[in-house]
């Protein structure tokens, strides 16, 4: 297990079973204060189950799930901003009444919650809708309100379960901007997402969960290293022989080869110049050649397969 200096989230030996079916098996990880943590996995791998158990919404079968050194208890724990995967609001109430209600439940005074809400609505461009019932708002407008409710009261810990799911591009940008802001303000962020470019851009560390078991855990660089670290992309003419048959390229794995664009994964510590020399020596006509860090996207596909994320 990777350990962090000042853990905000601690999960140890977490197990969750529904009847005879075990969906999480001996899961453990930590999230340090101020860290942005990517909690990744295909649909049905157990991410939402873990978050719900961490937040006390469901009871774990076994294990320890702590926030700030103790099991999560509403009000007794620190400030939390939670955007669940299944999300909604009181549809028959007005925007501002709903936001004030959540603000007060999060510990704000009614007047502070009202001021904050009005300022937020101004910021996201819907100040005129403050008194409008939520069911009269468009989907995108409701998403903005949802997001506002999540980040009310300056959360110390933000847990976002597929935050961009169902968001239109405008709101997605808004969301990511707000997440960036919260990070800069020192908030700890735990984020479930399938957007690997967001993970590479935002996350300090990640955990990849598959069938309830952690398949990779560590910093983004550590995980990339563990799954082949650096890959080499090159352009070639004609047919590319299997790298394993090329002298000097034993142990090199072919990741992709399409329309003259190929990607190979050499063993850790391999000198890219030696790879190029071996290719040329084997008669491969190389017109472009570049070592690149392995993308999380390709690691995700390797672990979960091409059809990950297409339903439970």
């Amino acid at each position, binding site marked *: 297990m990777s350990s962090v200096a000042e853990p905000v989230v601690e999960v140890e030996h977490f197990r969750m079973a529904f009847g005879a079916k075990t969906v999480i098996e001996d899961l453990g990880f930590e999230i340090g204060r101020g860290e942005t943590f990517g909690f990744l996995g295909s649909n049905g791998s157990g991410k939402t189950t873990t978050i*719900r158990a961490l937040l*006390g919404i469901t009871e774990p079968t076994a294990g320890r799930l702590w926030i700030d050194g103790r099991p999560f208890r*509403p009000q007794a724990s620190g400030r*939390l901003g*939670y955007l669940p995967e299944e999300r909604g*609001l*009181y*549809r*028959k109430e007005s925007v501002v009444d709903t936001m004030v209600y959540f603000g*007060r439940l999060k510990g704000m005074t009614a007047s502070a919650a009202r001021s904050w809400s009005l300022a937020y609505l101004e910021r996201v461009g819907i100040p005129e809708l403050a008194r409008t019932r939520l069911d009269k708002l468009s989907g995108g407008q409701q998403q903005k309100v949802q997001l506002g409710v999540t980040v009310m009261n300056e959360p110390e810990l933000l847990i976002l379960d597929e935050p961009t799911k169902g968001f239109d591009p405008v709101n997605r940008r808004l969301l990511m901007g707000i997440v960036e802001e919260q990070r800069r303000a020192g908030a700890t962020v735990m984020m479930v997402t399938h957007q690997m470019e967001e993970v590479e851009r935002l996350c300090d560390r990640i955990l990849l969960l598959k069938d309830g078991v952690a398949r990779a855990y560590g910093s983004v660089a550590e995980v990339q290293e563990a799954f082949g670290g650096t890959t080499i992309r090159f352009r070639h003419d004609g047919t590319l022989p299997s790298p394993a048959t090329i002298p000097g390229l034993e142990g090199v794995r072919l990741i992709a080869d399409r329309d003259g664009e190929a990607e190979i994964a050499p063993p850790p510590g391999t000198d890219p110049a030696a790879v190029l020399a071996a290719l040329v020596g084997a008669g491969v006509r190389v017109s472009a050649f570049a070592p690149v860090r392995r993308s999380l996207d390709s690691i995700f596909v390797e672990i979960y397969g091409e059809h990950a994320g297409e339903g439970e």
Partner: protein
Amino acid sequence: MAGNLRTVVSFEVGRTLSKPRFWIVTLLIPVMIGAVFGLSAWSSASTASSADQQASARFPFEYQDASGIIVPSIASAAGGVAQSDAAQGLADVQAGKVDAFIQYPANPSTETVTIAAKDIGLFGNGRYDAVAAALLTASAKQGISDPTLAAIASGDVTTQTTAYDGAQESRGFAAAIPPLLYLVLFYLVLVLLYQQMLAATLEEKENRVTEMILTTITARSLVAGKIISLFVVGIVQMLVFATPIAVAYAFFRDQLSLPALDLSTLVFDPGKMIIGALVLVGGFALFTGSLVAVGALMPSVKDAGPISAVFMVAMFVPLYTLTMIISDPGAPIIGIFTFFPWTAPVTVLARNALSSLDLLSAVIVIVELYLVAAVVLWLAVRFFQYGAVEYGRKLDPRVILRSMRSRRTTAA
């Protein structure tokens, strides 16, 4: 904890009271009660007046008197002419010469008076019975020389009963009315809040708010807050019902012809009032918990409706035994309804008011109500917590209870 409970109560109460629909429905009740009372009073007055008119109606008729009781002068004053031939009497009616032919038998106290009459409609035909009976009564009174006996014979008698409970004078209905108000309150509050109780936790599930809300407040506090807010809304509704009635009684009694009730004659027996209050609160808690639990198991109000109807039936069934509660409170069915938790509130509130409930039974029922209500409320919270993330699915309570047991075992 207390702060968030207050927040939930103020939010729930505020949003209920701010809806025009709430005020329309709440104000409609006293208006409807007033309308029903008005119609009923008008209808009674109209019926009595119609009966009097029928009895004193004058129309041409013939009569045959085998009893010898009918006084010819009285019959004549009513439009009657003696007819000795029954066949001719019937023929005269059929020919339209007279409106009716009345045959008085030899002994009208044991035999039937028969009337052949012209049809003047379902209600109009009543005048023939009324005149035949009035003629007989007036003639009979004429035969009694003593005016006192004549008055007694016509049923003009006033009685006054004083009942004793031991050595103490019993106050009858004056003592029954105040505790009976608890029963009225129980019905009004539950009928009006039934839908809200059922939907108390369903709204969060249907709108997918549960997960967010449960990270700010515990399921227990949320459910408690909702139940308290239902109670507050119930009290507001009671006040709204009472206000127009009190205003009408205080300022418009004469215009509305309301009876002048002497409220000072009402007897507030402290024992009955305390028992009634405890049963009312316990019953309210039990029914609220039961309906919230059903709501927590179901994905929508529509799905919860049929199951919750069972509780409404349990609430109304004891009403059908009300006469038995008065006449035979020891009947086995009354015993069952008294101690079965969901029929107990109505049965016990009625028995308490009608003085057919002993103290021991009252204590047993009150303890039972509070215990069962506590268990049901606890289950409601557990069901809500377990069903919080089961969007769009019905939950099986057995699966939840099994799951709770297995977690306890694992934890041990």
